[in-house]
């Protein structure tokens, strides 16, 4: 008896996206209602899935009822459900922000938004490597168009780099898939886990090469050190709602790293066991340093937000790179925190930039902005969240990461890099905050000018801030419910560190030989 709810998060955005394509562009209100309803339904679906999988079972859905490993399967385990929940909540908040303005500056925003969610949900749920490639392409194609939404010179330039580097990444992904299929004859992840562990000596080299190629692809998506340079330009130049949604895109890469290198190349993988151990941690540490240097060197607020995303990926992958139960728990707690906080920062940066007239988000002395008290409070709250000062979720996340690192052999390095970069982040954000709010000159009030091409009637600031506040509330909820969340993260880590359970759920008892 299959549980059809597993495929619902993939089907719903696909159907709604197609439906939206049929609605006339002029009928924007109806599109908005449909789009928001769809995302709200996805939040509910993710919650139901999360409840179902929080008991022991892993839900497996064989598409077309073809049994694994021959057919494509979708697998909802705790990790997948957790990711679905995070992306649905984030999408809901960013969509609320987008319906005020961003969806009007170009066509088909809502269609693309739904297709982006289709790709994300599919990537989290799939249990097949080639299917993962297909969902990657869906989410990338949607993201290319969303990134370029509205057009503009700088956006086009950044978009071109983003598209080309991701196409090269897709090619590498195909090569990796080819090597794995050629040597092992399967692409089902559970089956791959079994076959990699049992691969004969002459194939071990090829299997390892494929593993490293995959790591390259996922590191590109996650914006890990040598290949992170596409991110700051792309995120800084797109519309705020899209940049906020893209906070989850780098996490897809992190999710894939976690999934593939615990399941396929994990402890039990025999000759290819713990393949990227020794690579992930140093690269993540270096990413954190470089990201934070970028934060300090930024000349624009949006650019700073983008570099904060790079730094947060560094912190999170440090946690995953520890390769221990506690490390994964810390990473899984840090993941929603950094996603929501980064998204809130992008939205806030946009709101502030729109109030500064021509100077926009440049770090120059600007006019005193309207609603500076409220915005200032929110800015410093977000900054505290991101830097990781008490009492917010960033603090708990960093504490968890440091605790997990206590027993690691290079603890001094991890400790000093995390603490020093936190300090640097604090200095950089305090500097931007004081420039934006305290040192603003009382020039003539600059009129409220949003994106040059559109004229929008200015709503009251509270309406504009609803998405930001809800994202911050989500972060605060992570503090209040820190106990239950870490306990749940612990059950996720337990589950993914026992690939045998996953393999048995997918392949049945015959899978373990």
């Amino acid at each position, binding site marked *: 008896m299959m549980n059809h709810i597993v495929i619902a998060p993939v089907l719903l955005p696909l159907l709604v996206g197609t439906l939206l394509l049929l609605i006339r562009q002029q009928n924007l209100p109806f599109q908005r209602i449909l789009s928001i309803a769809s995302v709200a339904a996805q939040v509910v679906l993710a919650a139901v899935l999360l409840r179902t999988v929080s008991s022991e079972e892993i839900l497996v859905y064989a598409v077309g009822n073809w049994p694994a490993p021959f057919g494509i399967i979708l697998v909802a385990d705790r990790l997948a459900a957790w990711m679905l929940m995070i992306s649905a909540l984030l999408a809901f908040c960013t969509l609320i922000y987008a319906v005020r303005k961003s969806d009007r500056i170009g066509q088909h925003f809502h269609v693309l938004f739904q297709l982006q969610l289709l790709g994300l949900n599919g990537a989290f749920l799939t249990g097949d490597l080639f299917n993962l490639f297909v969902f990657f392409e869906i989410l990338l194609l949607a993201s290319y168009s969303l990134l370029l939404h509205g057009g503009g010179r700088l956006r*086009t330039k950044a978009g071109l780099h983003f598209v080309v580097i991701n196409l090269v990444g897709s090619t590498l992904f195909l090569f990796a898939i080819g090597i794995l299929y050629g040597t092992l004859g399967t692409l089902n992840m559970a089956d791959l886990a079994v076959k990699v562990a049992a691969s004969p000596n002459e194939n071990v080299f090829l299997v390892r090469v494929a593993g490293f190629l995959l790591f390259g692809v996922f590191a590109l998506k996650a914006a890990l050190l040598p290949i992170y340079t596409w991110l700051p330009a792309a995120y800084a130049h797109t519309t705020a709602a899209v940049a906020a949604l893209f906070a989850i895109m780098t996490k897809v890469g992190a999710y894939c790293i976690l999934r593939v290198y615990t399941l396929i190349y994990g402890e039990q993988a025999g000759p290819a066991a713990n393949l990227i151990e020794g690579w992930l941690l140093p690269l993540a540490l270096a990413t954190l340093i470089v990201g934070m240097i970028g934060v300090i060197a930024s000349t624009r607020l949006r650019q700073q937000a983008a570099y904060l995303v790079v730094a947060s990926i560094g912190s999170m992958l440090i946690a995953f790179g520890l390769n221990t139960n506690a490390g994964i728990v810390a990473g899984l707690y840090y993941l929603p925190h950094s996603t929501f906080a980064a998204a809130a920062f992008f939205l806030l940066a946009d709101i502030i930039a729109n109030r500064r007239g021509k100077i926009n988000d440049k770090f120059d002395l600007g006019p005193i902005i309207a609603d500076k008290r409220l915005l200032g409070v929110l800015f410093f709250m977000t900054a505290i969240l991101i830097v990781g000062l008490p009492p917010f979720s960033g603090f708990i996340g960093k504490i968890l990461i440091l605790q997990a690192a206590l027993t690691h052999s290079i603890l001094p390095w991890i400790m000093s890099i995390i603490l020093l970069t936190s300090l640097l982040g604090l200095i950089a954000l305090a500097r931007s905050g004081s420039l934006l709010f305290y040192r603003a000159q009382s020039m003539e009030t600059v009129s409220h000018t949003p994106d040059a091409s559109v004229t929008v009637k200015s709503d009251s600031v509270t309406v504009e801030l609803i998405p930001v506040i809800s994202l911050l509330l989500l972060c605060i909820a992570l503090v209040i419910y820190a106990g239950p969340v870490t306990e749940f993260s612990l059950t996720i880590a337990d589950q993914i560190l026992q690939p045998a359970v996953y393999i048995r759920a997918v392949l049945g008892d015959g899978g373990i030989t």
Partner: protein
Amino acid sequence: MEALISIILGTLTACGVYLVLRFRTFPVVLGLTFLSYAANLFLLVMGRLTIGKPPVITDGITDYADPLPQALVLTAIVIGFAMTAFVIMLSLKAYAALGNDHVDGKHKL
């Protein structure tokens, strides 16, 4: 046969990598297509090189052609086409917006 395929694959990939690293968008797009040709061909031959073998299980036959890589490569080709079309349109747009076809949009080359 194997040697020939390997040489073709290597040449395609090398050309692709070289062209992707060029500074104008047109060679970069060409390079991407070369790379995706190489990936598709690679995926196809991962089912092993066989000629005249049936893909469907039949009585009395021991050697088969693997049909799965062909299905995979069809998917990859379709996706590759879509992506190539997209990147061509994007480079045209970049040319129109930036006034030249440098990948960084620089005016002086």
